[in-house]
């Protein structure tokens, strides 16, 4: 995994709203679910970007939007430099081949009435393979994902969950894709099988030069596979950073809360660890809270968080975080930081202020721009 190539996929200020309709004869849009709310990121060729967040944070919607399985409400999506935001079916066809998806549920994503030969044959024919080559290539694909070539005439129900996920991967590979979106590819599998599939995905990436968008809710799996990681909450990117930085030095309190919530499979370390358990649940995405969307659960929230959307600020190493009161950064690092282009358009333009570590929200942190913190 290198990830130093040219950008393969560029996503700029993409929004995906789903209308909530009501009315007897005429459907009126009464509200919008803000599933993805102004997200910007790019994927470099050969890298793996992990996309994590709790259920309902918009990570699956985002992955579908960038593949153009959903039409974005606004924003721009470029694939290999070409703007595909509003490309029609015909114009999309050459790009479709290069972007494939592996789904979460290996039981629901394979047609139970088709044999493996048909499941893999359809995309191969789509690619222009014909005659006896279809069968030969399908068998090669099985070999590639670690199944036996003789399994070609079996039905999906004859395989276990891990094996089915391998068929799903083979189906994605059949198109010779550049980009593979992996939507929770291992969360339906047993632990010992998860490791097998993750190893397979890494080997395939190395040998085929694939680019992965790895969507998952499990931060420990994501740590293992990703070069960079984006943390989403309620439709927005909270933090985006090189993988190791995110775990060593989380800047956003939400990231810290997520990391701290994961029990470490080591009893001694678990006992010695001080855990921060955030209270409450994610708010309703129909009416996201004003200001920072995490302020309702954040231990460090102050007045500015309730009113001003925090800008995505770029710290050293390309570490982005959208927080007014960042963790694990020094005043010097804040001074050296800049507001990123990836910042949401509605965000404030004021840099974060310095709050010493270990101080919670009880303490009055003054607004960075000198806003009196007491205004309600």
């Amino acid at each position, binding site marked *: 995994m290198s990830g130093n190539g040219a950008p393969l996929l560029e996503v700029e200020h993409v929004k995906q709203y789903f209308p909530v309709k009501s009315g007897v004869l005429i459907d009126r849009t009464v509200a919008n679910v803000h599933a993805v709310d102004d997200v910007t990121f790019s994927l470099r060729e050969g890298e793996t970007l992990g996309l994590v967040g709790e259920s309902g944070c918009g990570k699956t919607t985002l992955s579908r939007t960038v593949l153009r399985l959903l039409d974005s409400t606004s924003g721009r999506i470029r694939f290999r430099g070409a703007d595909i935001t509003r490309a029609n079916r015909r114009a999309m066809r050459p790009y479709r081949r290069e972007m494939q998806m592996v789904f979460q549920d290996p039981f629901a994503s394979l047609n139970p009435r088709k044999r493996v030969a048909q499941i893999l044959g359809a995309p191969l024919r789509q690619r222009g393979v014909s005659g006896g080559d279809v069968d030969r290539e399908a068998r090669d694909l099985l070999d590639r994902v*670690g199944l036996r070539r003789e399994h070609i005439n079996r039905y999906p129900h004859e395989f276990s969950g891990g094996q089915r996920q391998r068929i799903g991967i083979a189906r994605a590979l059949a198109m010779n894709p550049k980009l593979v979106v992996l939507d929770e590819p291992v969360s339906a599998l047993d632990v010992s099988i998860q*490791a097998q599939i993750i190893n397979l995905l890494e080997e395939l990436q190395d040998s085929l030069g694939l680019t992965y968008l790895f969507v998952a809710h*499990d931060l420990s799996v994501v740590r293992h*596979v990703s070069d960079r990681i984006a943390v989403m909450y309620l439709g927005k990117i909270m933090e985006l950073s090189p993988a190791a930085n995110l775990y060593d030095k989380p800047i956003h309190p939400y990231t810290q809360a997520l*990391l701290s919530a994961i029990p470490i*499979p080591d009893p001694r370390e*678990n006992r010695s660890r001080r*855990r921060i358990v955030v209270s409450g649940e994610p708010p309703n995405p129909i009416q996201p809270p004003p200001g920072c969307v995490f302020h309702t659960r954040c231990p460090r929230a102050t007045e500015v968080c309730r009113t001003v959307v925090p800008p995505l600020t770029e710290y050293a190493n390309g570490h982005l975080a959208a927080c007014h009161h960042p963790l694990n950064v020094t005043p010097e690092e804040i001074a050296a930081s800049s507001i990123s282009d990836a910042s949401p358009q509605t965000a404030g333009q004021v840099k974060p202020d310095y709050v010493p570590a270990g101080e919670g929200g009880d303490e009055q942190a003054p607004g960075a721009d000198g806003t009196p913190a007491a205004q309600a």
Partner: protein
Amino acid sequence: MAEPILEIDHLQVDFRTDEGVVHAVDDVSLTLAAGEVLAVVGESGSGKTVTAMSLLGLNRSPNATFRGSARYRGQELLTASEDELRAIRGAEMAMIFQDPMTSLNPVQRIGDQIAEQILAHEKLTKAQVRDRVVELMERVGIPRAAERARAYPHEFSGGMRQRVMIALALSCSPSVLIADEPTTALDVTIQAQILERLKELKDETGTAIILVTHDLGVVADIADRIAVMYGGRIVEQGTTDEIFYDPQHPYTWGLLGSITRIDRDRAERLPSIAGLPPSLLDPPKGCHFRARCPHEFARCSEVPPLEDRGAGHPDRCWLTLEEKRARRLVDGEIGLVEPSPRGLGLHCENSPEAPSRRVGEHR
């Protein structure tokens, strides 16, 4: 350790199916003391849920046979009549099911569902029941409990529904709580809240908990003792520290080695356990882990008994203590060595036999 309140001796559960007899649970013995958290760990199909359900007679059917014994405070559970079981279920031993989305009645108000269970075991007035329901809901951390008791399950989020399940299970102050994957369907921040709550409740009420799970992180967080199950058998049993720091069975090594951790740098390759769990219709002779075990040798064709081989806790592996301590380290960490270097695509599920059909499989 205190007097055990639950004793399982040589439990064996078989299911007759069209394809043959499935030996879902094979010679499982466990004890549970008051106030203790026992984690039963294993993959899907390892028999952990079947064991838990057998205790409450939830999987009785004409096709199921139960052998051995399971006693709650001396009372035999496997042969107990439905009436006897009904007095125990909910009041003495309660269960939290895995899926909070499907285990509540969708057309009954939350408060009424909890009240129904209380009234099944105790004679109380309407007002007393209402107070008790609200108090229970508050105890598990449901805000505005009095108001929320009138809501229906669909008005609750997953985390809140799981709290309702816990409130239901606690409604008659049981001495044993069986929690089957209680946090698997939940997000990590909600999982952390629920685990904290379970720990507090255990300390307050002294309820013993059997935690059925596959998540070793959760186990490390909350369990006092662990039983590792594989292919219907307990392969190793000990205190949490013994299992994590002195594991004796190769399957446990593989399990510990293959988990991804947030507090460690990434390894080049994640150690995995090759192959698939055995089919319980036609399990391998001898040790069930044999086919996937790189340390297999001739003796493994005999079933190893669960006994202490010098480590201080029992396991089912024929290797000697010295052999185990030497072989379980892979690059300084506990893990399972991968048999002979293999190329891309050959390191995995290559078993020629038909896929295992597993009983009690759930996702």
